[in-house]
């Protein structure tokens, strides 16, 4: 009995203990629940505050732009971007620090470049985010227009675009011969799957529009629609397709160039909005230069490839000239005899103007238009320097001042240097540079040098036997 009672007592104690722990857990759980609710409420409040702040900043941004009643989509976008800049600045200290620094000494170029470098190093700043976003577009459309890494041969040149066009054709329910369509699919599947899909998604509308435009201009459509079993390869049809492709490609390139100009404008304006202290002529120039360098570096290759595709024929002509006339003497391209040494021994194994040729070759190693232009300017300066030296080798007395190098002397030398460079892609590089050179530089030294190089290349192109007669120095 006693034993039993003791047992029950022990049971009771055990139960009591269990109950107590249960109670404890329960209250703990309740507390946790409460905490959770509090946390949730706090989070909500925080979120509300964040939202309020966002709205407030948006309003602030709106006020800043509230100069005119109607708003274009661009302005709207800019408001949103500016709001995100304000938000960023509330969370980060560095913009304030730099602004304060620049306020103290506003025109210090070292500070300006410091700020720009700093900005470029923060990928989460809205300016940099915009840059990435804007960069993506032209590079993707350029990529999609190119077949992975094909060289510029006319055959390859056609394929990616043909597939796009043929696809648009079939979409427009104008049935071409099915075999052609299959071919198109073949070339497509050979290509990088990623590329081809983006080709279809991003460029379908464009090429489709282009196509519609062309279809109205050409009258072969009605005769071919519904003419499915016409298996004869139609020569004129092929050439028309080729023309279409060429024109569409040019249109695309134009659109991409315009896109890039817009992108840089937008970047610059957001940059100046974020840092008003940069809004002086000098700082702005510095800002554009840095932005462009970052912007162009990753996209120059695909961009140039596109330019090369468009200028393929010219490049081929220049290439043949370079091949044919690679070892001519400067005199053969019309360089005045006083401007190169007759006795090559004085050059110690090199050839005349080699330093200029070497400089020009560096052009392709740069990926930013401004840097490339500087390279061209340096090339021309070296030419002038060499010409001066060579003349001094021949005439012992100092040359009269009036004998300075003018365009009459410069262009033949430049043609010679271009020939020796053996870089037919200069044609496309120059065409691209012409699009991206700053307006301010257009009539300056950079513009002059670019124009001269283009002229020299056109001359080199015309040297081919089938073209203009071979160079013959004109007696003057």
């Amino acid at each position, binding site marked *: 009995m006693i034993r039993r009672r003791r047992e029950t007592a022990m049971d009771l104690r055990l139960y009591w203990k269990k109950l107590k722990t249960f109670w404890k857990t329960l209250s703990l759980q309740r507390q946790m629940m409460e905490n959770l609710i509090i946390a949730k409420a706090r989070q909500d409040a925080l979120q509300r505050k964040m939202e309020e702040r966002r709205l407030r900043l948006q309003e602030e941004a709106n006020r800043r732009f509230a100069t005119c009643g109607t708003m274009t989509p661009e302005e709207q976008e800019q408001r949103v971007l500016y709001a995100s800049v304000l938000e960023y600045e509330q969370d980060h200290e560095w913009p304030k620090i730099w602004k304060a620094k620049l306020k103290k000494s506003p025109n210090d170029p070292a500070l300006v470049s410091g700020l720009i470098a700093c900005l470029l190093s923060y990928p989460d700043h809205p300016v940099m985010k915009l840059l990435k976003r804007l960069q993506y577009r032209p590079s993707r459309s350029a990529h999609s227009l190119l077949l992975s890494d094909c060289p510029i041969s006319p055959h390859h040149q056609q394929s990616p675009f043909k597939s796009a066009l043929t696809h648009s054709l079939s979409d427009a329910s104008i049935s071409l011969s099915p075999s052609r369509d299959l071919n198109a699919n073949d070339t497509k599947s050979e290509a990088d799957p990623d590329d081809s899909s983006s080709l279809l998604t991003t460029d379908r509308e464009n090429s489709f529009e282009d196509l519609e435009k062309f279809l109205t201009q050409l009258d072969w459509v009605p005769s071919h629609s519904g003419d499915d079993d016409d298996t004869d390869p139609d020569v004129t049809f092929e050439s028309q397709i080729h023309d279409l492709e060429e024109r569409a490609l040019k249109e695309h390139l134009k659109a991409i160039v315009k896109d890039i100009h817009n992108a840089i404008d937008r970047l610059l304006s957001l940059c100046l909005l974020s840092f008003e202290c940069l809004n*002086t*002529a*000098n700082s702005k*120039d510095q800002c554009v230069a840095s932005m462009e360098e970052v912007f162009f570096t990753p996209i120059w290759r695909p961009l140039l490839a596109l330019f090369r595709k468009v200028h393929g024929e010219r490049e081929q002509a220049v290439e043949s000239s370079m091949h044919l006339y690679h070892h001519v003497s400067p005199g053969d391209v*019309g360089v005045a005899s006083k401007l190169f040494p007759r006795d090559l021994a004085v050059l110690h194994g090199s050839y005349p103007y080699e330093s200029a040729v070497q400089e020009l070759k560096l052009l392709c190693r740069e990926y930013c238009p401004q840097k490339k232009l500087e390279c061209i300017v340096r090339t*021309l*300066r070296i030419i*002038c*320097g060499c010409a*001066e030296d060579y003349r001094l080798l021949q005439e012992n007395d100092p040359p009269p*001042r*009036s004998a*300075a*190098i*003018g*365009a*009459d002397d*410069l*262009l*033949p030398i430049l043609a010679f240097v271009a020939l020796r460079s053996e870089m037919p892609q200069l044609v496309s590089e120059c065409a691209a540079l012409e699009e991206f050179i*700053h*307006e*301010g*530089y*257009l*009539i*300056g*030294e*950079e*513009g*002059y*040098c670019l*124009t*001269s190089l*283009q*002229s020299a290349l*056109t*001359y080199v192109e*015309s040297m081919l036997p089938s073209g*203009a007669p071979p*160079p*013959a120095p*004109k007696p*003057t």
Partner: protein
Amino acid sequence: MAAAGGKTYSFKVVLLGEGCVGKTSLVLRYCENKFNDKHITTLQASFLTKKLNITGKRVNLAIWDTAGQERFHALGPIYYRDSNGAILVYDVTDEDSFQKVKNWVKELRKMLGNEICLCIVGNKIDLEKERHVSVEEAEGYAESVGAKHYHTSAKLNKGIEELFLDLCKRMMETAQLEERSRGNGASNSSTGRRGVQIVDDEPQAAVPAGGCCTSG
């Protein structure tokens, strides 16, 4: 130096003429004269710049030399585009060089219309005795094509300063007319690739293409 107008005009001037008419000497004379000899650009006489102050307005001139040889003629147009002025030089002792000037005038008018200010320049008047192009003929022709005619001697430094000053004034008038017809305000940013660039005055406004007169 303080410009009252608060504007800086940038003008592009192309220099055309056959090989030995002396266009290089002419432009060198002009750009060197006021400064010392060392002020030739690193591009020597091919590309020269000069800063001027005319009636309180600042003017930046960029002078583009072109190749006179026949085989480079096809390449001319890319040099002329966006030019505000052209100086067409012939040698008064060389009838043929005057004929070449006529060809260029035709091409320039075709390409750039009436907006470009043309100067036809008879150089080497120090060789008056050997003159082969008569004054009447040259001046008559210039008038008939809406150009102005000048006589210069690079050797004696005659008539050059006047030529450039006159050209600058004419280009400024043309630019002002154009500004007015376009309406103020609409002229900024959206001008595209125009030759005249009017830069709003800022303290030490950055002129991208190098500093003083002939530096490069």
